[in-house]
């Protein structure tokens, strides 16, 4: 057999995949140079599901952000001539018992829900990264002490404690401000896992030879932390942040559904779904609970998909 026929044969076996073999030869120098972030981006882009997740999420964020432009109604404006309207041209998702346009409330509710999710995660990350970073970098008794604290935080049963705290500090607070309370409760209760992860990350990074090399070169500690440690944990932090945000949105929705989260009249998806606890509404006014529920579902799912894709893209182990 000649070489040529051999090649043809292989091409037949995998026709569409290896036709680049012959014309794209050997010149590694000509390959596109990719920064690590670009590599992640490329890997991520290949993941169709994750990209879909990201797009859905971006759309939802845009819908929430552009709410004032998208809807002519005010989420708090009552119109008693339009009470409990079914979906129609003027009110795409109907109105509630006070004649407020429901689509508008869902859009604004998304703003609150996502804001709570976002800031809860920011709090979670700030504390988690700080604690994990300190524990990992300094080790010794600092690590020991901080990890004990983390252990205790991780032993807190999330929902009951969140409910308790919410009930305890909530009452003094106006509905508009309750969402800040929510952010803190969710953020404060959920940083433990992240701190642990970052600590592990830093511990293993600290043992990596490039950190040793930096020390050998006489690089300052602060620079080692900023230039060498943090950029290398950033990927994981971003992944945790996305997945954490999905969790936080879910927690907020749960608490608000129980009436212990953000309270009306401030709309959030969670307290909008609460409408359906009344069987009449559940049965006869589907538009009052289905859309906000679906919104939560889509938000959480899109973030989960996005976060999973991101993790796969960042994780060097995955192909």
């Amino acid at each position, binding site marked *: *057999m000649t*070489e040529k026929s*051999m090649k043809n*044969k*292989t091409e037949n*076996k*995998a026709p569409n*995949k*290896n036709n*680049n*073999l*012959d014309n*794209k*030869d*050997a*010149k*590694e120098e000509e*390959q596109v140079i990719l920064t690590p972030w670009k590599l992640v981006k490329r890997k991520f882009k*290949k993941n169709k599901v994750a990209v879909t997740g990201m797009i859905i999420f971006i759309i939802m964020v845009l819908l929430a952000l552009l709410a004032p432009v998208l809807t002519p109604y005010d989420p708090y404006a009552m119109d008693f001539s339009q009470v409990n309207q079914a979906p129609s041209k003027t009110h795409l998702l109907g109105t509630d018992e006070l004649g407020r346009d429901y689509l508008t409330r869902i859009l604004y509710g998304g703003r609150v829900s996502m804001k709570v999710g976002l800031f809860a995660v920011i709090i979670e990350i700030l504390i988690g990264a700080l604690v994990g970073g300190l524990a990992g970098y300094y080790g010794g008794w600092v690590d020991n002490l901080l990890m004990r604290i983390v252990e205790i935080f991780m032993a807190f049963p999330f929902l009951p404690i969140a409910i308790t705290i919410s009930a305890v500090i909530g009452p003094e607070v106006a509905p508009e401000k309750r969402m800040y309370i929510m952010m803190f409760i969710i953020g404060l209760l959920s940083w433990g896992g992240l701190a642990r992860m970052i600590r592990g990350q830093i511990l293993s990074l600290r043992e990596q030879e490039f950190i040793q090399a930096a020390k050998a070169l006489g690089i300052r500690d602060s620079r080692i932390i900023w230039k060498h440690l943090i950029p290398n944990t950033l990927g994981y932090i971003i992944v945790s942040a996305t997945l954490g945000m999905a969790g936080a949105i879910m927690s907020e929705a749960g608490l608000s559904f129980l009436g212990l989260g953000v309270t009306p009249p401030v709309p959030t998806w969670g307290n909008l779904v609460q409408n359906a606890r009344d069987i009449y509404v559940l049965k006869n006014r589907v538009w009052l609970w289905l859309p906000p529920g679906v919104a939560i579902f889509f938000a959480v799912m899109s973030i989960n998909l996005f976060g999973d894709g991101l993790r796969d893209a960042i994780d060097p182990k995955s*192909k």
Partner: protein
Amino acid sequence: MGNLLEVQDLKTYFYTDDGVVKAVDGVNFSVEAGKTIGIVGESGCGKSITAMSILRLIPDPPGRIVSGKIMFNGEDLTKVSDEQIRHIRGNDISMIFQEPMTSLNPVFTVGFQIMEALMLHQNLDESEAKNKAIEMLKLVGIPRAEKIVDEYPHQLSGGMRQRVMIAMAVSCQPKLLIADEPTTALDVTIQAQILELMNDLKSKLNTSIMLITHDLGVVAEMSDHVVVMYSGKIVEDAPVDELFKNPRHPYTIGLMNSIPSLIEEGKRLESISGSVPNPLYLPKGCYFHPRCKFATDECRKGQPSLREIAPGHKVSCFRAEEVTK
């Protein structure tokens, strides 16, 4: 022919998202009964994949044996049923892997892991198998075998684990033992112990050994015949003495010249410039030409095929005759 195993034009490709990796690309060689064949080459040149193709252990997807024959005992292993190949694995052909630390299942005792193959292939019952396992452990020189048999891999040192791997591999007295870099992860003094053991077993059990390594020293010491691989192809194939005395492929020569212990004191090491090509972007023509001092236009265009230049000595190079140490 006394050939126990004959690999003919074996091609194993990996279909990845980035393209096709021709990990093994038309490999021909044979193993004689009772002899040791050494396979050397740089990391990623396809040694392990060749070995795993023989036992059909290629992860599929993404890998696939695209073509070729693997004749063993008159049967083509690429064609036999899954049931048949399972019967051959561990029984007629067994394998020792590179990493003794990760190749044993951490949750089972080493004894059990040896017994498993025995109970499967030799129809021994549990107590018989256990006795046999202890016997095998003693054979590979493990002290206190009666006790070790009930221990878990993590309780053993690297050398001990590799011995266990060997005991497991030889327990059914295979006709062919494939050893994929069995000592790379071990220290010199331990490596010496293992090599000694393998030689010992070979003479006792009369198995053929296919020894994969990148250490020319180990090859020189252990093998009867050597195959040199580069980028999924065989570049040179010769009896061991012949190869070391009279290497003909520029790659083999370069390899030998870059080993410090083969170099005269104070002399500069010769090195092969450049690095192993990315299997996704293989050069046109002879895969070695970008690093080859002897490359001509011919090498850049066409791929040389493996040809016999002396009895038993095959080289895949257009200019083999002109090339010398």
